[in-house]
């Protein structure tokens, strides 16, 4: 068995060395690691991960004879898939407050009356300092979205890579978001009574446009613009998910009912603060949630039964849970998941909430979210348990390449760790 594998690998290596004349990416072997594959293979000890041409070539529960690969010895280390920021505005904001353009917020414009037509894939800045700051701590891709449009929908979000690239968008128009919580009601008519009827009406307008040719000469009296209605079509068909922000158990049930009226739509609940109260119904409806497991206070009257056990209780009922709602500090998603684990979520589910679960929610699990043959080689070598606050990412790989473990923050740190007796700090490198 072992010989067969070694043979197979050496054949591949010959192929790789020929290829290396043309390709930049090195072949990398991570050896002796504890690998949480987040696949059917589960967790492998003393395992080897072979990476070739930016993809996972194979994962082995032993160490074969290896040549033609740069070997990373990961003895005592933990390897996981790269973390996927489940709900961020990465690339859309540098400094949020009083600091110029913020692409995650918009004001009214002629193109949209509902916010559905807005598309962040035009707006992502891959050189934002947040990207490197997040990736050196293990976040390798993310869902990124607007968070304030003043309209019904917060636009169409995108899935981005956090690699060192100028073309970060992996999947544009990847999801749409809408709030049906207190904030959503405040935004649309001041009441759920206005909000929900608006939402239903806008969806029916979109359904009306399906298969129709509409142009500037068409007669159209919808409350959406034509661009809004057209943008909703693929979401009506369930090709991409609609994230619906809801906290109160009763609001979550309304979302479940909406799903019954539009059975093709792919609905995901954002926050689901009182989700534990309707966990069985969510599981039956096959609706996943993206949440902040630490939210345990009644910030609004629609969050009264908030508890640290929400994630654990939802998971126990069979709901798919993703964790990671932050932007500047999306790197703390692993701590959030750790706290969910401390409050009842099984550890493996905690790691899944950062990796394979967001990949499934966004329909990218064929390429992301687990360490399996053929998938993109986004992975992280951790000093230990990634959910433990004292452990850290030691080496991150994106697209099969070791990323430089440097950010603006590490540069600031290193400058001020050096002495600067007779020298202005501006000269300290």
């Amino acid at each position, binding site marked *: 068995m072992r010989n067969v594998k070694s043979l197979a690998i050496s054949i591949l290596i010959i192929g790789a060395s020929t290829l290396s004349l043309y390709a930049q990416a090195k072949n990398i072997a991570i050896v002796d690691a504890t690998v949480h594959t987040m696949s059917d293979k589960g967790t492998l000890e003393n395992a080897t991960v072979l990476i070739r041409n930016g993809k996972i070539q194979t994962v082995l529960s032993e160490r074969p004879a290896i040549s033609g690969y740069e070997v990373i010895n990961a003895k005592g280390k933990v390897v996981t898939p790269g973390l996927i920021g489940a709900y961020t505005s990465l690339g859309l904001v540098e400094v949020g407050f009083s600091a110029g353009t913020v692409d995650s917020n918009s004001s009214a414009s002629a193109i949209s009356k509902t916010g559905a037509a807005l598309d962040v894939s035009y707006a992502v800045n891959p050189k934002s300092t947040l990207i490197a700051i997040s990736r050196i701590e293990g976040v390798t891709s993310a869902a990124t979205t607007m968070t304030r449009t003043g309209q019904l929908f917060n636009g169409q979000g995108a899935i981005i890579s956090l690699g060192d690239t100028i073309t970060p968008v992996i999947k544009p128009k990847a999801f749409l978001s809408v709030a049906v919580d207190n904030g959503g009601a405040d935004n649309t008519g001041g009441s759920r009574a206005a909000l929900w009827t608006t939402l239903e009406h806008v969806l029916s307008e979109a359904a009306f446009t399906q298969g129709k040719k509409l142009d500037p000469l068409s007669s159209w009296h919808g409350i959406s613009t034509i661009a809004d209605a057209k943008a909703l079509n693929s979401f009506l068909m369930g090709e991409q998910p609609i994230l619906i922000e809801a906290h109160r158990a009763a609001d979550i049930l309304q979302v479940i009912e909406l799903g019954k009226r539009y059975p093709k739509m792919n609905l995901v609940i954002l926050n689901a603060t009182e989700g534990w109260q309707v966990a069985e119904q969510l599981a039956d409806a096959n609706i996943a949630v993206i949440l902040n497991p*630490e939210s345990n206070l009644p910030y609004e009257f629609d969050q009264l*039964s908030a508890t640290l*056990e929400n994630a654990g209780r939802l998971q126990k009922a069979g709901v798919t849970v993703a964790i990671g709602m932050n932007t500047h500090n999306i790197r703390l998603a692993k701590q959030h998941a750790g*706290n969910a684990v401390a409050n009842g979520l099984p550890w493996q589910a905690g790691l899944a909430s950062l990796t394979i679960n967001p990949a499934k929610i966004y329909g990218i699990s064929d390429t992301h979210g687990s360490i399996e043959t053929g998938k993109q080689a986004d992975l992280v070598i951790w000093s230990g348990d990634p*959910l433990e*606050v004292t452990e*850290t990412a030691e080496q991150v790989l994106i697209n099969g390449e070791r990323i430089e473990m440097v950010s603006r923050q590490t540069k*600031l*740190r290193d400058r*001020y760790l050096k002495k600067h007796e007779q020298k202005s700090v501006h000269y300290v490198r």
Partner: protein
Amino acid sequence: MIPKLSLKTLAIAVVGGSLLIGCSESKPEKEPPVTLNKKPFPSTYVPMASEPTLITNVTILDGVGGKIESGAVLFVDGKIEAIGESVEAPDNSVKVDGKGKWLTPGIIDVHSHLGVYATPDTASHSDGNEMTNPVTAQVWAEHSIWPQDPGFSRALAGGVTSMQILPGSANLVGGRAVTVKNVPNRTVQDMKFPGAPYGMKMACGENPKRVYGQKGGPGTRMGNVAGYRQAWADAQDYAAKWDRYYREHDAGKDPKIPKRDLKLETLRGVLDGEIIVHMHCYRADDMGTMLDVMKEFNYQIGSFHHAVESYKIADRLAENKVCSSMWADWWGFKMEAYDGIQENIPMVHSAGACAIVHSDSDQGIQRLNQEAAKAWADGKRVGLDISQADAWQWVSANPAKSLGIFEQTGSIEVGKQADLVLWSDNPFSTYSQAEHVYIDGALAFDRNDPSSWPVSDFELGQPGEGDRK
């Protein structure tokens, strides 16, 4: 010279602007000088009932740098009576086996807005910023605190035994801060930490200039600094008026009683060293300016809060004996927070300056041990090797010192208040949880006993009442 007012004369008070003039015993030759009641809202805190308790076989961090791998602590009548590898205890004491667990001093948060920005987060509960004038030293946070804020019990479950509650940072001078025991009751006085000095909130940088830029100023950082300096100059002038009054009275004259000014009274309390300045300040250059303002007007800043750039001037903060109260990793939400780094806390500590981990958050306050753990680990990775026993000072002893309550609490030492947390494991971990929280020796929270979980009036009769939070 500023005469120190005697405590004995405090009973003779100026109340609501009308003078209650005391008389001396028989034939007064002249009226005694007026004195001002400095404590018109006295603490009515009474520790909860406690039993003598002995915790054994436990890993102890004493909060002042000491660690006992397997030790014992005895507390009786709310005070720590003994600490050591083994301790004799009276027969009637409650015995707690601490095997595998850790015992630390209770966490003290120097920066909380619980009660003044209570949940639910409604406009009606927005009581933390008196945004009507850039200098509002006359307002007191304790007059805004709603003791029914559910946030207090969440903080308790995170091991927080005391906290300072401050006004917000909209103003150059935001008003008085108050230190409380985390035992909310019917009124705020019921939780006030007996004997704790007052704090006074000030703010550098972006917030005041943004709030007042279109409301008559200050509209710039230089405007901010002019505002602080004028306020201190006014306070000096006010102090001189009262000094002259007492001097002339002592000299047998019949001086006119100066008009009370509640704003300048608080500022003067700082100049007299009775009130501690807690100053919201992010940037190193802003802090550098304030160190000079501090010297110019001869007062002491107890702590810069947020202080995300303290690592840039840690040596000067050490020289000037000013603490930094910091987050582990918050950054970037505004320009003055753009240079935040995760090694700030250990870099300040390693420069010999006083480092404090603070929350400024109803979420962060629940996990200050984890915030300390992250900072400890980040420091270690860049060669700042600080023991966990030393690092615990960031959440207990140093905040206690900066609040002026270290004589009473903040460490596990004989005679101190038994404000303690028994952790399920090493508290420098995501998974460790506060199992027992003792305040003045009383078991204020027991994770395994739902009947011990506080439920505020607000939470009664609401979804989730009494649930594990």
